[in-house]
């Protein structure tokens, strides 16, 4: 007898609450690791709490969101320190449900769990710390918004979903987190849904991601079924052992997973949603671009890195990854040159930087790619918050309404410049170290088997460094220098918004110091402590040639920007057209990707194809049904009209006439007198009996 309650029992079948320990830290660190499930759960619980009681709290739910993200930040930093002291890699699994067996394979187990290793701790830290600053800032930015409370509920869901994803030790949980992030992004991008454009952007983001998710689903299913387990550790075990079944499907699985990653990390050609996602409030953009959503793809590739790195597995996908990354980093960077919206400049710069990370992953540089993710999170978060502060001050996104703001908004100006320099990769800020490492990795890969693709992407990346510096210089000059061109009086943002700027600015300065080639290797060590790590390339000494070249490109970009935009910022738009006549329309139209998608895919599906299907339904299929009905009616009309009314009815009518006559005679017998009826009854009975006796 197994009662109902058994459905609620965790780990029903014998110690399924499993613990995979690769490197057990033990002691307090071990305790921290085993309670790390709180990291994703606390923000999710906060989400529900905010929805339910948020409005009644003094700060309308903000305190719950802030508290939960602060908890995550503190916990993550504690884990980071513990990991620093003694590397750890721990997985916990709790069985949710178990479907007896897949044919020929093991049981299908639905699990929930959490993995605490260098990679996930790094991501926890990024989400927690950047999130903490952004949440703080958002209180000032969103003050007075109609849906303040709901905003923070979605925000917590956003962070919580990302943490679920990062903490996932199995692929199904990863999908759960992945989709939670997606839906939270939908809610946040479309936060001001009174305007249909914002909602359209939200839908665009969601649908684009959903298209890519087809890849993720397919990849996860292929891997999970082939290996017989959805645990990432089991999958990577099979990869490490060179399992032949896995090797057969590895290419397709790897490609499919990467397509999923391309969606979330907005790689070409799935990049179109990210610039539009600017429709959301600026803190959303900040968190989305820095820590949560777009990093998920890179994280996924990092988490599954051995699959791509092991020879004979999905290593053929790497060349695709590196090319996609290379194309994205340069092409989207170029678009940033022609944007007038300050947030769009930053958005395209994010795309470009994500291209760097992806290219690094494709070049086999696991550490370099994730290091850039790490540093980028801080300075890109900072840049968005600063941009938000500007927008808050001048009530416009358009840089042609700005100018000369350095006098009005000193804190914003200074932090924005710090962020821009970090992004441009100027020594010794964070961006320098990570970008340099990527260049070095690409260079190494070009020599080590990446071949022409890696070489090509290396040059694209170096060119990209110039472009990056150029558009950031342009943005800085247009926004903060020259004369103020907008209306009203710009003002510095309140303290609650400026101190997160300074906090992140500090991190943007120092974040690179954890991994200076030849000097420090803390970051490398963090990432090395994981369940499966495969030999990636990591530079042990500074590649002076590339460092100098990269820096020179960046300085060149800044110089070009200064030359073009410093003095005569007012006529900037005409200059764009003058200077790059061929490229400009192409860039302004974003290489016509949106046109292609809207007119080539979405439009036809929503329009002619959908209408055709409905036409099929209403005319063809229902036509068949109606034809049956009509045929039945015709047949009935024939049967009734001819055979019945004129054929049989002729006889019937004659009979009826006779009956009528007879009836008028016989009806006299119907007197209504009970006793006559009774008499007839008895007489009839007698006659019947007599009849039976005679004829029976």
């Amino acid at each position, binding site marked *: 007898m197994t009662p109902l309650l058994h459905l609620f029992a965790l780990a029903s079948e014998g110690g399924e609450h499993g613990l995979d320990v690769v490197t057990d830290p033990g002691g307090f660190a071990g305790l921290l690791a085993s309670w790390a499930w709180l990291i994703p759960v606390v923000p999710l619980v906060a989400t529900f709490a905010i929805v339910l009681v948020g409005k009644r709290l003094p700060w309308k739910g903000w305190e719950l969101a802030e508290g939960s993200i602060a908890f995550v930040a503190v916990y993550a930093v504690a884990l980071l320190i513990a990991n620093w002291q003694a590397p750890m890699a721990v997985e916990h699994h709790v069985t949710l449900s178990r479907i007896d067996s897949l044919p020929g394979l093991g049981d299908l187990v639905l699990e929930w769990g959490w993995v605490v290793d260098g990679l996930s701790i790094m991501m926890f830290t990024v989400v927690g710390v950047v999130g903490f600053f952004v949440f703080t800032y958002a209180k000032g930015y969103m003050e007075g918004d109609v849906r303040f409370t709901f905003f923070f509920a979605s925000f917590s869901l956003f962070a919580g979903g990302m943490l679920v994803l990062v903490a996932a030790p199995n692929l199904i949980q990863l999908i759960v987190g992945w989709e939670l992030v997606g839906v939270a992004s939908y809610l946040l991008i479309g936060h001001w849904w009174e305007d249909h454009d914002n909602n359209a952007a939200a839908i665009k983001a969601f649908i684009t991601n959903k298209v890519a998710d087809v890849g993720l689903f397919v990849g996860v299913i292929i891997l999970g079924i082939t290996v017989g387990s959805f645990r990432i550790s089991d999958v990577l075990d099979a990869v490490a052992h060179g399992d032949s079944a896995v090797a057969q499907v590895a290419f397709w699985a790897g490609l499919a997973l990467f397509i999923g990653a391309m969606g979330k990390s907005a790689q070409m050609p799935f990049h179109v949603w990210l610039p539009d996602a600017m429709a959301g409030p600026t803190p959303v953009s900040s968190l989305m671009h820095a820590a949560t959503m777009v990093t998920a793809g890179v994280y996924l590739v990092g988490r599954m890195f051995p699959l791509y790195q092991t020879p004979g597995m999905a290593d053929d996908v790497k060349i695709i990854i590196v090319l996609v990354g290379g194309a994205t980093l340069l092409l989207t960077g170029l678009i940033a040159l022609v944007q007038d919206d300050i947030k769009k400049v930053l958005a395209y710069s994010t795309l470009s930087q994500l291209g760097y990370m992806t290219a690094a992953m494709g070049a086999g540089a696991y550490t370099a790619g994730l290091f850039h993710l790490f540093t980028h999170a801080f300075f890109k978060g900072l840049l968005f918050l600063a941009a938000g502060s500007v927008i808050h001050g001048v009530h416009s996104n358009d840089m042609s309404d700005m100018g000369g703001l350095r006098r009005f908004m000193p804190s914003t100006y200074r932090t924005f410049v710090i962020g821009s320099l970090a992004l441009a990769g100027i020594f010794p800020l964070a961006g320098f170290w990570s970008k340099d490492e990527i260049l070095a990795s690409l260079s190494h890969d070009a020599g080590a088997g990446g071949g022409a693709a890696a070489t090509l992407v290396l040059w694209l990346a170096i060119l990209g460094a110039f472009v990056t510096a150029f558009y950031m210089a342009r943005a800085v000059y247009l926004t903060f220098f020259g004369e103020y061109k907008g209306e009203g009086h710009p003002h510095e943002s309140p303290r609650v918004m400026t101190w997160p700027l300074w906090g992140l600015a500090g991190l943007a300065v120092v974040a690179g110091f954890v991994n200076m080639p030849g000097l420090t290797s803390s970051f490398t060590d963090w990432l090395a402590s994981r369940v499966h790590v495969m030999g990636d390339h990591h530079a042990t000494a500074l590649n002076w040639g590339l460092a100098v070249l990269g820096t020179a490109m960046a300085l060149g970009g800044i110089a070009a920007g200064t030359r073009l935009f410093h003095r005569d910022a007012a006529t900037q738009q005409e200059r764009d057209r003058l200077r790059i006549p061929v490229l400009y329309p192409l860039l302004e139209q974003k290489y016509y990707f949106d046109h292609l998608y809207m007119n080539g895919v979405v439009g036809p599906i929503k329009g002619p194809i959908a209408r055709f299907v409905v036409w099929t339904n209403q005319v063809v299929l229902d036509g068949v049904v109606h034809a049956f009905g009509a045929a039945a009616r015709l047949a009935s009309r024939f049967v009734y009209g001819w055979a019945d009314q004129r054929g049989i009815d002729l006889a019937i009518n004659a009979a009826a006439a006779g009956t009528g006559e007879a009836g008028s005679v016989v009806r006299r017998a*119907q*007197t*209504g*007198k*009970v*006793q006559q*009826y*009774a*008499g007839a009854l*008895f007489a009839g009975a007698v006659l019947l009996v007599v009849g039976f006796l005679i004829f029976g």
Partner: protein
Amino acid sequence: MIVNQFLVLGALLFSIGVYGVLVRRNAVLVLLSIELMLAAVNINLVAFGAFVDDAAAAGQVFALFVITVAAAEVGIGLAIVVLIFRNRSSANVDELDLMKW
């Protein structure tokens, strides 16, 4: 005693009852005739019961049921008669032709 004597008596009483039902005009008398028919039926039932002599005593039990139902019938029948009389100031059956359409 043979069974037939009871059956023939029953038939005779029943026929007399039939005659009464057919010929009487007053509704109360019609009901009385029906009682006569029911009594005849009871005689037949009990006689058959004694003839078959089964342990379940179906004949007698049926007779009892018939008596009960008859009592009910009389109750309702008289009520209807009273109602008709109240409405029409007459209890004559042949003045009622509601069954005619």
